[in-house]
């Protein structure tokens, strides 16, 4: 296969004011992918791929180029390809990111770009991990509105300020970038992890919800918020810009304030 096949993310030429000289620069990268397929070998390995990419391409475009033109067995999840579905969280140059939101030009392309599965969850194949333990923790914090009052005929009222109180944690896309960046989670898989706490926070601080105490009690558990060591990895990893560590701190304070 010699023809250029995979389309760049964007072939659009922007005005000089935005894109410099307007030409789309191409450049060469080495993509170093962590490979693992227990059907073939119990050993994981690194495979290097030399690729020519465009200035606006993302890591996901590089992975697609490998899969579509070189080796179809390279396996990774992806769907929306613009950072809203949360399928393609992976460890890129040692940091958790979404492959579809990480532009190659923002990485150091003079060295190989390493791509590995997120840590702390069992690897199934290549970049695909078992997400079930992650979603199990999510389900355990009762991530749904519980309101004990009478159902109004119209909507429940909520002030603009009350709505704003939990806005940040409504942005979570359950990609697991935060949880799988947490050193506590790596060593203790029982820890709820940042994402579950973020989703508990979203309801604890929702003025319409009546089950905050129950959630705080769940998170007061030995595998709950107190395991957090405030390393801020989670906040740095979040592709939605959620201030995860702050949300965890607010949950800790709420537990202390209510003296459960």
């Amino acid at each position, binding site marked *: 296969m010699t023809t250029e096949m995979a389309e760049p993310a964007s072939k659009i030429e922007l005005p000089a004011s935005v*894109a410099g000289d307007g030409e789309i620069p191409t450049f060469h990268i080495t993509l170093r992918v962590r490979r693992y397929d227990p059907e073939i070998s119990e050993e994981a390995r690194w495979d290097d791929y030399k690729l020519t990419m465009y200035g606006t391409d993302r890591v996901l475009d590089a992975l697609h180029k490998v899969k579509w033109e070189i080796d179809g067995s390279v396996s990774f999840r992806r769907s929306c390809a613009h950072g809203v579905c949360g399928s393609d969280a992976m460890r890129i140059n040692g940091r958790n990111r979404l492959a579809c939101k990480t532009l190659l030009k923002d990485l150091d392309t003079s060295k190989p770009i390493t791509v590995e599965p997120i840590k702390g969850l069992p690897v199934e194949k290549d970049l695909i991990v078992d997400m079930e333990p992650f979603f199990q923790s999510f389900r355990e914090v009762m991530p749904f509105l519980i309101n004990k009052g009478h159902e109004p005929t119209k909507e429940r009222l909520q002030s603009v300020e009350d709505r704003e109180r939990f806005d940040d944690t409504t942005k979570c896309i359950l990609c697991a970038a935060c949880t799988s960046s947490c050193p506590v989670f790596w060593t203790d898989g029982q820890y709820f992890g940042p994402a579950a706490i973020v989703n508990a926070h979203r309801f604890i601080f929702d003025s319409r919800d009546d089950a905050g105490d129950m959630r705080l009690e769940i998170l007061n558990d030995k595998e709950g918020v107190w395991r957090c060591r405030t390393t801020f990895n989670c906040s740095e990893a979040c592709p939605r810009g959620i201030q995860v560590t702050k949300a965890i701190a607010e949950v800790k304070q709420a537990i202390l304030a209510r003296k459960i």
Partner: protein
Amino acid sequence: MQVHKYDVVIVGAGGAGMRAAIESGQRARTAVLTKLYPTRSHTGAAQGGMCAALANVEEDNWEWHTFDTIKGGDYLVDQDAAEVMAKEAIDAVLDLEKMGLPFNRTPEGRIDQRRFGGHTRDHGKAPVRRACYAADRTGHMILQTLYQNCVKHNVEFYNEYYVLDLLIVDEDAVREDGTPYKQKRVAGVVSYDLASGELHVFQAKSVVFASGGAGKVFKTTSNAHTLTGDGMGIAFRRGIPLEDMEFFQFHPTGLAGLGILLTEGARGEGAILRNSEGERFMERYAPTIKDLAPRDIVARAMANEVREGRGCGPNKDYVLLDLTHLEPAHIEAKLPDITEFARTYLGVEPFTDPVPVFPTAHYAMGGIPTNITTEVLQDNDTIVPGLYAAGEVACVSVHGSNRLGTNSLLDINVFGKRAGIAAAEYSKTADFVELPEDPEAMTRGILDGLLSGNGTERVAQIRKELQDTMDANMQVFRTKESLEQVLRDIASFEERYKHVTVQDKGKRFNLDLLEAVELGFLLDMAKVMTVGALHREESRGGHYREDFPDRDDEKFMKHSMAYLDNSVTAASSAESVAGIRLETKPVIFTRYEPMERKY
């Protein structure tokens, strides 16, 4: 063979599937099968809002919403369905609020509402604030809220179970007038477990299709990689017709070159489209509501500006979405995500620079035909007992030839709920239909054929060429010649598809194989769409024929119905292609006479 038995099986876990599951799961034993994880579904990418005539911020009523929907669809809408949707919209929004959806609020604490394309006060007099929203993440909030409520109700999910076949049994039956016919009955589905590579048969009394659209037939699209028309394709291959497939919506404001969606809500909040001369060109195309005209009109206007040399950028191949006159704080509060997309992917700062945009393939108006109870039709009049469809995979038809913005989030909630209730209620009275002998046979044949192939053709190469010809010839502007070109191309792709090779021969997460299967559905759907477009010699809504620029109610005020029919050969029909038979179905009118569509 692994066989599971459920009262109700729902295929797809986006908005429509999960809304159905919440109803069905509380009434009957229900399983939801998805080729992704529920929260990865593309409902989450919807941005701007969900319309309902709550009248929270200004006078409004559901009859105006009904009218706008029908006019927006250029009168090809089934009016009974549009009435149902606009009327039930109000409860659909309130349901979501009670489930916990964090809508933006008015100063009084009510659900806030904003303007959206084609939604008007009093039958077109002026834009109306009808779209309920949560910043520009309304779809995300709907998807999360529905998933949260599925967790609450212990809905049983089979994640990464890719449904590949619908098990249908043909029974001899007789119509009231004495003519014999084949009555289709649903027995279940066959799915492929991505993790293990094993096939699983799900026997069910009711099956609900809620598997979304087929936008990946186009290159420039707002759709996810996974939206490959599987549900439509599966039904079509089993003899269910597909309705109005020639109508595909191109959303005006995709990020240029990328197709990533920038919500129409941006224009609802005051953003303006400009050409290379800085002109607000929509004033010429839709003098009354300008930038808030329906999507087909705006998309065509943009493509026309580019074609006539008034495009922007070094290659004059896009126009600009201008938000620079809006307050940065207002943009930050109402449109945080799309401004981030512009920064991340194009490096453009929307506070100070206009954003390059061009139409992007967005939504299939057509799909599996249903009545307003979401029962699937096997022909114009006959339902398939126990088979339901809702959301983008279905054609009920509330969108006609052009869907209004926000009406898809509404569609999935209103008709998803109806499907869940109807499927569960049916399962209480029905018996299981006996599984056909060797139910996995067709699926195993497809998979084994692809795995054992040793040709030289690559899936990605054929898919790219398909997407290229669809973008070039089946997009906003169409002609007889361009459509015939697509059909010639597809014929050659189908031949090459027989010789594709799948490199990954393993059983575990074989996504290489999955992409090869998806390409088969994409080819089928592209062909059905193009045959419909060739046959429809008029221009209506999202379908614009340069060689037939006017709407022709006399000949074409009717739905098209495409059937798989191997007795049709290329030579037997000038307008069809081998294997597809086209028929028509009457449009349902209640109270609105077709008028000329002006904004």
